[in-house]
């Protein structure tokens, strides 16, 4: 883990009144339905946190990437061997 990642054990409070999950546009068409409404975003699925690339029309998942196990935070000692 990088020093920058290790430093995040406390987070400053947010400034906005409401918070949102950002869905980032992906320049790719859905292979299932040809839609260009493909976005990438983090989600907590049945098997843990994943950043998925999903067609917003048919919900086909084009790609999935495992995130940090706790979402956006990780203990400093996560990768220590016992």
């Amino acid at each position: 883990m990088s020093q920058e990642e290790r430093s995040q054990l406390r987070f400053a409070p947010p400034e906005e009144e409401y918070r949102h999950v950002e869905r980032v546009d992906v320049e790719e068409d859905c292979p299932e339905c040809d839609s260009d409404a493909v976005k990438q975003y983090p989600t907590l699925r049945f098997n843990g946190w994943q950043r998925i690339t999903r067609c917003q029309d048919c919900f086909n998942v084009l790609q999935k990437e495992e995130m940090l196990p706790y979402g956006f935070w990780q203990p400093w000692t996560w990768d220590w061997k016992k």
Partner: protein
Amino acid sequence: MSKEKSEKSNPTITPELEERTEQSSEYVITDEECRENYGLGLTDAELLRHRFVAMVSQIAERLQNGAFSVVIRDMQDFGIGILAPHDPADDLHMDLVASAEGCPIHFFNLQYKARNNIREYGIDNLEPGDILVYNDVYRGGSHVMDNQVAAPVFHDDELVAFINIDGHFTDIGGSVAGGFAPGITDMYSEGLRLSPRLLFEGGEPVKETFDLYLDNLRTPEITFGDLQNYGSTLLEATELLEDLCEQEGAETVRNAMQYTLDYGERRMRAALDELPDGYYEGEDQIDDDGVNTDQELKVKTALKVRGDHAEVDFSGSSAQVQGNINGSPSDLTASAHIGLMSLLLNDVHVSAGMFRAVDVLLPTKSIVQAAPPAATTQGHLVPSAKAISAIQNTLSEEISGKGVAESYNDVPTVAMSGWDGRGDEPEFFLIFQVPYGPFGGTSENDGHCYSLQIMGNCREMAYEIEEELYPHVVLRKEFVRDSAGAGEHRGGPAIRWDQMVRFDSELTVSLEQMRQETMGVEEGKGGDPAYIFEIDMDKWDSKTADQCYPADGGRTPAEYRNMISGVIDTETGEIDLENGEYHTGKFSDKPLPAEQPFATVVAGGGGFGDPYERDPEAVREDVRDDLVSIEAAKEEYGVVIDPDSLEIDYEATEGQRAEGN
């Protein structure tokens, strides 16, 4: 077999059963498919699926019989799960295979908490007889009072499953007895926060872990008993699964787990497929965070359905707050699943297979996914309850075929602590209560009158036992007249709970749904908001009691009350949502003098449907049961009832309803 012959030999095949059989073809596989996919006949697979559930029930019974804490023993505030092993190549991720009795939010969030912590400890580091313990909110937990233990199950040196128990500890240290502390502003003040560590190693207790608990909690005698009970229960539970593997073979058990998970997935996907594709928004409000009491907060949900898959997006929810109502992702994900399943699936035991069809989006640094060091003890309850409500509001009757109005929409907590002087030596006491309340009316029935919010499903301790254990007296527990939301199917009525402590003590409360009525749906009306008051003992005497009770219908006249919480008209002392002043229902360590009665009044349930459509006979029954007054019968329901005979004047009722429409 001819139809005539089949009907003679199967006389119980009704049209309803035929319809259900046809519907179940969406998710029931054939014996041939079962053998091909799982190496098991369908009957064997189903027997094992149910056997997993029966084992969890057996473990729950054992846990409760040995528990010391009333929260586990009497209130059933725990969850138990059999989890699959961790083998991603075989699509097994320590998923919840079976759950049974207990508190739904515990077993819905159980696998998220388990997976993170067991993996952090290191699966390969576990040996037979080891039991891990952990409670950190930010490691997938709920709040620090919920401590989870996990035991690996081995068969022939192979790790075949985990068995986990997640239970609420009465105290976990921290700045306020009981742990629920409105007013605190960070996780450091809330109590022990534990990364995964061994509680038992090879079946033997680990001194350092026991010391950590016993040196830091206010109830060490109870905690010591419960930690031991956790250990003995789990060690027996692992034997149950080991025996099953011995009888059936580890491979059969593993395949049965796969079958169970896939069955759950098929059931949920079939249910989602019945919903029209679409985007359904909902939201619910939180009165305040216990610190900035002038700021109302919001949990927003957007359910997106595409075929047999869904997303629940909490975007638009309030940012995380200073007070202790910040939620965790495992709790809010569990709430999303609970909300959906309450309307879509009500006849199948929960497994993680059902979670495969629903993905949850949680904005960071929000009240549905806070970042450290935010405080979270009440976050396990308040945003979770609101999320469930918001999702139920999202799926109206038109969409889901079922409609439900808002419940009392809270999981309140009341804690009283002090020194019990009844014996020869004073003894510290800590009473922890979770007031129950009504549900909202539904498309089929009136709202259930008295239960815990559906994420809880806990039991209430018998007052005789409570008054024996603690220096505490329950004075009144009753419905409040005219507090239920009117509707064709009315909500359940609000409930007031008067009690007092015999010695000086401190009172800590979190009560919600004070700023607004609960929501009625489909022209149903809202239920009364919640409030808290003390009886003014300078004015109250036995004569007053005789005058007021029971004629007051649960509403003590303002002159005998000192209001503590609610939206209060400061001149009259009455609840006035339009012009009153808001006083928070979240406070810690309020001094409670000996024998000072106080009352918590939870909100009434919302009504479903037009009140004028309610069967007049049902209204008369409500009047006879003192849930609805004669006046409200006429004003709210248009039913005119003679106050002496309680007979319905049908002609006048027809006129009243025509006039009202």
